[in-house]
């Protein structure tokens, strides 16, 4: 009973304080919004880039073109024995020609007559467990006897990984800086609230108010500011992302598959929201520790 009364009192104090420092509280909330927007949009980009990479990785394969003199079976065994190799399939030159014909569709006529003197080499198609071992495996195969040429998406996978790494680091840095700014702004907000209520706080102490009773409204104030800031950020992000999904669907950019898994997105948005409230609470507890002597 006493607890509920105290809680009601604290809530009232929190709202009063926010109303008193309305613009500062709004600025703090906006700061949280901006930093979470940046963090959130880059998290979404990273999430999608990750999915894209997975997709690419699953499709990446090494083409090993063989000399006509190659010991096909021995070579196949050797390749299979390499670490990281998952699947090896042999493509005879006739099959390669068929595939080419198929891929040319209506213009397949240009290949007419090549059956007699097939210029395509026999080849192995090698799949690895993941994209990272591709360069090493390719290098090893290149050394083998009877191998004419090894081809894979040289460089482009590595670049993609690198770019996403850099982008993520930069985003994290920017968002961290903004979050720090948000912390300082909220600290100032709380400091003003503490100053405005200094007499009251002192009297509360003489009346025998417990420490948490004195501190809680200020702590709550920071968390409420964080709550509003992160709500706006999450709503904006969610809206924009949903809009993007619709657009991608309409233009049917089929090669870009955006992440639509509700669980992953829910965790991301929930996490952002929690982070905002946490930043608010953290900032106010720092401020309370610094400026509120009880």
């Amino acid at each position, binding site marked *: *009973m*006493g*607890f509920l*009364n*105290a809680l009601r*009192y604290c809530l009232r104090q929190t709202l009063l304080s926010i109303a008193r420092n309305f613009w500062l509280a709004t600025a703090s909330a906006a700061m949280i919004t901006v930093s979470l927007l940046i963090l959130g949009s880059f998290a979404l980009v990273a999430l999608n880039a990750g999915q894209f990479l997975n997709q690419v990785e699953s499709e990446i394969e090494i083409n090993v073109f063989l000399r006509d003199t190659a010991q096909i079976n021995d070579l196949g065994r050797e390749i299979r024995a390499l670490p990281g190799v998952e699947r090896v399939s042999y493509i005879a030159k006739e099959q390669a020609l068929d595939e080419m014909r198929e891929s040319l569709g209506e213009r397949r006529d240009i290949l007419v007559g090549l059956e007699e003197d097939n210029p395509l080499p026999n080849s192995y198609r090698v799949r690895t467990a993941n994209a990272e071992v591709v360069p090493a495996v390719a290098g090893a195969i290149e050394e083998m006897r009877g191998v004419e040429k090894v081809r894979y998406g040289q460089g482009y996978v590595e670049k993609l990984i690198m770019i996403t790494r850099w982008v993520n680091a930069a985003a994290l840095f920017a968002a961290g800086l903004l979050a720090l700014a948000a912390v300082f702004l909220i600290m100032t907000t709380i400091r003003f609230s503490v100053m405005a209520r200094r*007499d*009251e706080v*002192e*009297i*509360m*102490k*003489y*009346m*025998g*108010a*417990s*420490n948490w*009773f004195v501190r809680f409204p200020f702590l709550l104030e920071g968390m409420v500011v964080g709550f509003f800031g992160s709500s706006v950020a999450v709503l904006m992000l969610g809206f924009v992302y949903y809009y993007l999904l619709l657009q991608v669907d309409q233009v049917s950019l089929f090669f870009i598959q955006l992440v639509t898994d509700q669980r992953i997105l829910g965790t991301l948005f929930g996490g952002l929201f929690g982070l905002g409230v946490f930043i608010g609470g953290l900032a106010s507890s720092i401020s309370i520790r610094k400026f509120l002597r009880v």
Partner: protein
Amino acid sequence: MIQFYNVTKLYPNGVKAINDISLRIKQGDFAFLVGPSGAGKSTIAKLVFREEKPTAGQIFFNGRNALRFRGREVVAMRRRIGMIFQDFRLLPRKTAFENVAFALEVTGVSGWEIRKRVPEVLKQVGLEKKVDCFPEQLSGGEQQRVCVARAIVKNPVLILADEPTGNLDPETSRELMELFVQINQSGTTIVIATHAWDIVNEMKKRVIALENGRIVRDEEQGSYGYGVS
């Protein structure tokens, strides 16, 4: 109820506010702490209220070592002590009722009980007609009565008043003292730090005289002393 054993308080700036004081105040006592400014009266009040800790010595509150109290126990002790100040320390934006109610609100008392208790104590201090006045609409004596009401509304075992009559005229001061006597008769211990010697002499209560941080005199039914009569 309160015992000081060889208590010394040394401030960081080197001032020895009180020096090796031993003191015992019993339940139901009515005592004056007297002495010139800087004799250590306020320091004793601060030590009792645990606003400060002594540099040396022990302090007991109701038979328990008050220096060992942790957060929750300090709060519990403070709820049993009513503080009254020279400068009133009322909240200017709150009415007399709200100021008294504040003392209960911060300890989580229900609204229903607040509405019942507050008018009772305001009546007890003779302010039943000024319930809705703001402090600036009240005279000094009335403001101090609000403070008394605020102190007694939590049913304290002890009232600590630091120069309560400092801002009041003699007549009002006497009325306030009458009020304290009344409260004391219901069993509440009262300790008043003051240098209002005329009042002390009239009251014929226990007088603890301080000088340079030491107790120089402790008499039942004493007088202010110090060469004034």
